[in-house]
């Protein structure tokens, strides 16, 4: 079973993405902030197959976490996709420049999210 690590601060968003991914047969791990996610990631025995990051969160942003992951040789190989309400083209450009594989704009069609996750989950 593939594991998806979701970093998302909104309760509703968390519930929705967890439900959708779980229903699609993924094991879902959740974190509400970048610091918590980073700590959790360090303690993981097996790395997740994919990380889904929100961008705007209290404290550090998802972009920062993406950079932290990219700079760490242990986690570099984990594919990252952003899932954010920032819909501008330049936002997506910048996010992808940070090393992410894909970008899902919120609100998203459930199937679109699942397709993107399936495409990139290693």
């Amino acid at each position, binding site marked *: 079973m593939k594991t998806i690590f979701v970093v998302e601060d909104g309760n509703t968003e968390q519930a929705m993405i967890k439900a*959708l991914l779980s229903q699609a047969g993924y094991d879902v791990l959740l974190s509400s902030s970048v610091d918590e996610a980073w700590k959790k990631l360090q303690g993981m025995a097996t790395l997740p197959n994919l990380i889904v990051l929100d961008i705007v969160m209290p404290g550090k942003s998802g*972009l*920062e976490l993406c950079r932290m992951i990219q700079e760490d040789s242990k986690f570099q190989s984990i594919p990252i996709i952003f899932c954010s309400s920032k819909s501008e083209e330049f936002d997506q450009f*910048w996010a992808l420049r940070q090393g992410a594989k894909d970008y899902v704009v919120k609100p998203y*069609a459930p199937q679109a999210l699942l397709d993107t996750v399936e495409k990139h989950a290693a």
Partner: protein
Amino acid sequence: MGDAEEQSLISKDVSAAPMEEVLLGKLLEASSYERSGDIRRAAAIYHEIVAADAGGTWGQSAQKALETIEAQDSNSGPNDLISTDTTGEYLPHSYDSGSPLGRDEVGNVVVPEIKPQTHISNPDHRSGRRGTSSRRLLSVRWTMLGAAAFPIATVLIAALWWLPQRFEQRWTESGATDQATLISSAEVKSLLEKQRQVSLLVGFLALSVTLLVSSNVMSSLSRHLHFLAQQIDRRLQGSTIDEPGLNILGASENEIGTLARAIQNLSHYSAQCEQKLADAEYSKQIDLESATRETQRLQQQVIELLVQIEEVRSGNLTARAPMIDGKVGSIADAFNATIDSLRYIVSQVVEVTQSLTEGARSGEASVRQVSDSALKQSQTLKHAREDVAAMVVSIEQVSELAQSSAQVARTAIEAAHDGDLAMDRTVVSMEKIRTAVSNTSKRAKRLAESAQEVSQILAIVTGISEQANLLAFNASIEAARAGEQGQGFRQVSDEVRNLAAQVSEAAQDIERLVQSIQEETASVINVLEVGTSEVVNGTQLVHQTQKTLSHLTTLSREIDTALQRVATNTTTQAETSQQVNQTMKSVAEVSLENAEAAREVVEVLQQLLREVSTLQASVNRFQV
């Protein structure tokens, strides 16, 4: 179907259970339908979610899903999905809140603005009413048509009437060239002239008739047109139009009727347009306001960002642009990332300059110490060299002493060797003496034994003489008895008796001699035995002396060897000491050079410290 029932069921569910859970359940259900390919049911559920949570997370997601589905649907061909499954009430929800991007893709369903045009252009509801005055106008069209057609028809007939003749002539002309002279060019000209005149006449007549008819029609037409123009003017000026009048005009099927209906429709349409324009104006106002707000927000965000950049410029690298959900979010993030890198670099520079300063300071002290030590070392080495030189002299003296001692030891060895040889000779002589004494002793003993034998023989001789005496005595007796005849015999026996007596006496003398020989021999043997033991003792003493001498020789040899070794060693030592002296000399030189180099290093380090402090001053501008 029980769509309505289902709807009511949903609303009941929504009110009964927590809204979010229901929506989540619905979304999951729709998503699973969508994945399994049952798009129709998925869309229905998505619509329900949109209806229940139009502006919320669930509703927006469902909306997005619907847009995707519909886009696919329009691509894959006509489908009555939307029209059957959704009632009109969903549409406003669906497309009021949708993003403009999504709306473009589904234009045919989405844009309702196009519909009013067809609605307006359909005047069915008015078609039943017809006015009597407009009935007259029906003839106008026919009159106008007749007026236009009459002159044209007349001219055409005239032309057609003339044309066959002309073609017949031309045909005859080309068919038989020899008859070329039959129709001259003058005839042709006159024919054409006649044709023109007839045409002009006919045209003039037709025009006159047309003008007569149309002047009548025109007056009625201009009245109606004037009325219609008035209505348009009124509409343009914003006042209400004469609807009943227009209705009467519009009831007729002719052009005026059509024009009237068109004006009416135009009026209605323009009213709608005005309404729309007003709406658009309003929404534009709203948009403008929101755009203004957005601009203000953007301004605010940019100002915040600029403030942070200014902070960084003044050296505060702890400044961070807030990662807001706005337009400048990505720029803020890029700014933060850049500042993070810069901060990392500056903090490293600070660290390095600090450790460099510390290192240079402690290095300077160390190098100074090294310089001092090198100088001291050079001094110490100088003293040491003097000591070593003195030591070399001492070693040389020791070497000489050892060599002379070795000479003495060698002389002692030679003396001991000579003594040993003399002793050997003494031992040989004494052995000879001992052998001689031993031989003498043996002979003396044999002499004693011979004397013993002589003594024993003498005893036998004595016994024989005693028996001879006895026998002579017995013979004398026997001679006496034989009287004178025995006289001579008696005399012989007497003589024998005398001889026996003499032998006995001689034997006694020999006995005495033998006894004295035996005594003498015994004393000689005693003397000889004493002599032998003396010789043995002497030999032993000589042997002991020899051993002592040999030991002495060995010792002397050892002493010689040791002394020779001492001599050799001391020579080597002297040489080594010389080398040590040389080495120490070069070490002292190197020490001096070291001291000089260390002094130079100190200068370099001081220069480095000055440069590092300049660098520190630059870096300290930054707060990390």
